[in-house]
């Protein structure tokens, strides 16, 4: 019809500086529509919508062997908006260190799949790569290598800025009170010394979860999370709370005395409640009630109450008897906002066609009222890194995560795997062409431009 030499970018409201939980991501694209003849426009009320629209536009451009034209685009109209506001990817940089370059590539891929939350699982038992300004000894003694395998304040700023430019929030996770072995080396007396059944102190380097009855620990946690709140601009911080072992708590004489004094008997969930009450009170105080929380589902499973506005992440039930849909029904009944990750643990690998099960997992497919369903705000892909590092994280994650991205962005009715298969294959080839080493999705196939071709 003509050459298309320009596309108008029409942002109708002033730019926001940071992506947020309630950011608007809707956009329109008009290319030679009756009300926009011979012109192309991307419009949105929000800069985040413009970003999503640019991504769509970039995918509309194609080359044709029929016409011999390298770049062409059809007359098109798109009206688009996300189905869920939280479309996350959890990246674990504690079991294996992920270089900044890898984190940025993952962020690029997220943006190219319209995902909007990078949940950065920064620390765990294995290592503490986050270099704290206030407590540098933790990464000095708790990282794999204190000069190379850490994230400095500059590194963290770089990741946040890179993500901001792509409309992606960065939510850090500092999982506690357990999964904290790496914290203890640089923060003495933080963890619970472990006694055996006879009340004898075990070898000096054996510790359990954070010692919940030591006052100084709450001073530390308040200062530490105060720093986190000032470092990461998103008000949400993931507090973890999963898989808390009571083994060392149960055997520590001071804790036993504390339990008895409070009349808690042997109910250690009361002690865990006490820990989270103190932690959230301390962080609310230092952040002037601005910090918001995400936690793993166990806290709700243990009937631990959490501050209003806390988001609960459902991660169990993909294999166990308890179905994640039942868990979603249970947690939303309590009135908590919820995100789902159970069906999307992509670190579990298999040979063959496995993306269909990710594609078909439906977060709203549980028995519950409309009010309960509104509390499900989205979901996230999880990529734990025990057996994944920067060599394999990208091909293992993509394009399988793309199927989750479509589940969380597109209409619920978009769930036909046959229709999706060819589109996914095309998308995989697109990502490959863009320079990302992503796995094949459908078995036998080819891309016009193969890797390293």
């Amino acid at each position, binding site marked *: 019809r003509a050459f298309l030499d320009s596309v108008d970018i029409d942002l109708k409201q002033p730019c926001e500086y940071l992506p947020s939980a309630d950011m608007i991501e809707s956009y329109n694209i008009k290319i030679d529509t009756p009300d926009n003849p011979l012109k192309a426009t991307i419009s949105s009320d929000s800069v985040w919508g413009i970003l999503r629209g640019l991504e769509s536009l970039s995918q509309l451009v194609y080359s044709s062997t029929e016409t011999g034209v390298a770049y062409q685009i059809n007359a098109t109209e798109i009206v688009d908006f996300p189905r869920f506001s939280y479309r996350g990817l959890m990246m674990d940089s504690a079991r294996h260190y992920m270089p900044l370059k890898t984190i940025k590539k993952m962020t690029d891929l997220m943006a190219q799949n319209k995902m909007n939350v990078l949940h950065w699982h920064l620390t765990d038992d294995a290592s503490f790569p986050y270099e704290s300004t206030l407590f540098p000894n933790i990464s000095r003694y708790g990282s794999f290598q204190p000069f190379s395998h850490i994230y400095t304040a500059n590194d963290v700023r770089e990741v946040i800025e890179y993500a901001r430019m792509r409309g992606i929030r960065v939510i850090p996770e500092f999982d506690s009170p357990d999964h904290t072995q790496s914290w203890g080396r640089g923060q003495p007396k933080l963890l619970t010394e472990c006694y055996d059944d006879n009340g004898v102190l075990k070898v000096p380097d054996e510790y359990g979860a954070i010692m919940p009855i030591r006052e100084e620990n709450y001073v530390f946690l308040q200062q530490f999370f105060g720093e986190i709140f000032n470092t990461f601009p998103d008000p949400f911080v993931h507090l973890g709370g999963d898989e808390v072992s009571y083994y060392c708590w149960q055997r520590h004489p001071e804790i036993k005395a504390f339990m008895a004094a409070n009349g808690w008997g042997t109910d250690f969930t009361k002690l865990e409640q006490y820990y989270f009450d103190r932690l959230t009170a301390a962080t609310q105080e230092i952040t002037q009630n601005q910090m918001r929380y995400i936690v793993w589902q166990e806290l709700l499973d243990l009937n631990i109450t959490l501050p209003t506005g806390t988001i609960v992440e459902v991660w169990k039930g993909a294999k166990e008897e308890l179905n994640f849909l039942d868990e979603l029904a249970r947690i939303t009944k309590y009135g908590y906002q919820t995100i789902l990750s159970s069906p999307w643990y992509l670190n579990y690998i298999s040979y063959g066609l496995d993306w269909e099960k990710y594609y078909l997992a439906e977060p709203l497919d549980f028995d519950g009222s409309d009010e309960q369903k509104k509390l499900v705000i989205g979901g996230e892909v999880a990529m734990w890194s025990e057996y994944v590092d920067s060599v394999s994280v990208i091909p293992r994650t993509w394009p399988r995560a*793309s199927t989750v991205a479509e589940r969380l962005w597109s209409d619920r009715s978009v769930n036909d795997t046959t229709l999706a298969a060819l589109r996914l294959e095309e998308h995989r080839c697109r990502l490959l062409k863009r320079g990302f080493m992503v796995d094949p999705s459908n078995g036998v196939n080819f891309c016009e431009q193969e890797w390293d071709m």
Partner: protein
Amino acid sequence: VWPKPQQQTYSETFFVLRPTMFQFQVVGERCDIIDEAVQRYYQLIFYPGAAASAPLAYPPTLSVIQDNPQF
């Protein structure tokens, strides 16, 4: 488009894009996010693999791309 948009209509009528002539025109509000994004997407549309190939700095400026005989 992946993920599939909520509504999309299109016709067989097509336009041709010329990398040397093409530009994004910011007609509404603008800021650093938009300025960087249009540069990034110009590159993704016309030189999709450039980001991955050394020795170009990432993201390269338009002039770096246009002046580079490799392209």
